[in-house]
């Protein structure tokens, strides 16, 4: 059996030709070793990175971006997204911090990809206090 794939490792997008002969998988058309790894994995056990965002409490920004610490089963993408639905992060949060361990039993953690510091003061504009001060 043979399959023609586009490597997704980098923006080059090499056109891969994968020949599967029993347990032997041969990859050609790749221009780096990562292409070979991708070709083999894609025909046997496809995986993808997940990148998404989570809400932050008391942060300078409303959302923190995050990613899977390594690629996960392609089939599990939506399960992981569902598991993330209930996660809220408290500021401060820093790049690399684990936000969800073992997401949807994939053995993969979800980690922050952005630094979000604590908001110095309440972001919302307090009309009442401001008006009182103004009237003093």
């Amino acid at each position, binding site marked *: 059996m043979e399959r023609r*794939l*586009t*490597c*997704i*490792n*980098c*923006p080059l*997008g090499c056109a891969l030709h994968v020949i599967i002969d029993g347990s032997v998988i041969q990859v050609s058309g790749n221009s780096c070793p990562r292409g070979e790894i991708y070709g083999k994995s894609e025909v046997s056990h496809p995986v*993808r*990175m*997940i*990148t*998404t*965002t989570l*809400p932050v409490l008391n942060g300078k*920004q*409303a*959302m923190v*971006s*995050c*990613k899977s610490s390594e690629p996960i089963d*392609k089939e599990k*993408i*939506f399960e992981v*997204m569902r598991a993330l639905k209930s996660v809220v992060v408290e500021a401060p949060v820093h*790049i690399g911090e684990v936000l969800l361990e073992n997401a949807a039993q994939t053995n993969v953690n979800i980690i922050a*990809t*952005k*630094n979000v510091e604590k908001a110095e003061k309440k972001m919302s504009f307090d009309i009442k206090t401001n008006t009182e001060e103004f009237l003093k």
Partner: protein
Amino acid sequence: MEQAKKKQLVVIGGGPAGLAAALAARKNGVQDLLILERDEQLGGILNQCIHNGFGLHTFHEELTGPEYAARYIEQIEHEKIDYLLNTMVIDLDDKKNITFINQNGVQRIQAQAVILAMGCRERPRGALNIPGYRPAGIYCAGTAQKLVNIDGLMPGKNVVILGSGDIGLIMARRMRLEGANVHAVVEIMPYSGGLKRNIVQCLDDFDIPLKLSHTITNIEGKERVKKVTIAKVDKDRHPISGTEETIECDTLLLSCGLIPENELSEKACIQIHDITHGPIVDESLETNVEGIFACGNVLHVHDLVDFVSREAEHAGIKAAQYVLNTLPKKETEIEIETKGVVRYCVPAKIDPKRMDDLQVIRFRVGKVLKDGAIYVWADDRCIFHRQKKILTPGEMEQVILKKKDVEYAKTIRIESEEM
């Protein structure tokens, strides 16, 4: 208004180009340096590009946009480079007077040198001539990306995307991941303008159909988008009647190209290139106004942030040389001719006396070439030749010129054609 302050170098824009340019300028000896950024944080568009694939060239690892930005921001902080946030530059003239506004009011700076790094913006519906109503629910894809990734808001539930540039493809996946239905990505050209890897991992993975050679011919819905009509187009990109089909949706995202943001450049009497819509620059990335340099997407739209960083470093180094009086004066500039399918090149001209030993020339082709070749000619000598399996308008190409090859040349020409 306060008296104008003096600065050696002002960088307008704190996105990837501005950050890399400022760092390079500092490392090359500019002390008195300021970055002006209109957003509330540094990093520009990288902050909302939460997907991965950034930094393979620069850091030899795959980073997300915010991580790539953070690497530069850390260095900016480490070098103690000054920056002002929430600060909008409202005027620039050819004497390098900068007027900006922020919460402290209107202020002026007289700069010795300026680096333009304002980036680009999306082509809006008004520039696309799509007939139909003007209901809510029509967004530029990058605006939708900001709503989802920065503000945590979903623009809609049933989505159609017009244009298959990378932002459109990335947003198709993003909306799907957040629970929306993405019914189709509609592309007027017979090929996608985005990277192949994005077609695979953003569309194919989620069974989102890509409708090539199709466009939107009508938008319906009075308050909110209700449906769009799509139709096949002929080779002249005119809709073919009888091929129409309607798709019910509440949201239409537009990913129809980016336009360098050059209102300030024009105020400073900087000449703008007809094709790139960015300033015309020389080998030092200097515009026709002495001491004003440009880099990144304000100069021409790039595909990869890594290339933006490279280009911006070059502008930063040259601006530093200008400030420190080590950049030679312009003498004889040669315009680089483009031939065959080469649409444009940046820089558009070089001064062989002033150039470094190696000079990067970036360019794009105007159509897909299978088994193409790239040639560079100095007078009638071929000084560069490379064959490529595929050349596409969606992927920027580059050649590197050696000073010794062009030093005494009268003409330089870049050519690309099918073999």
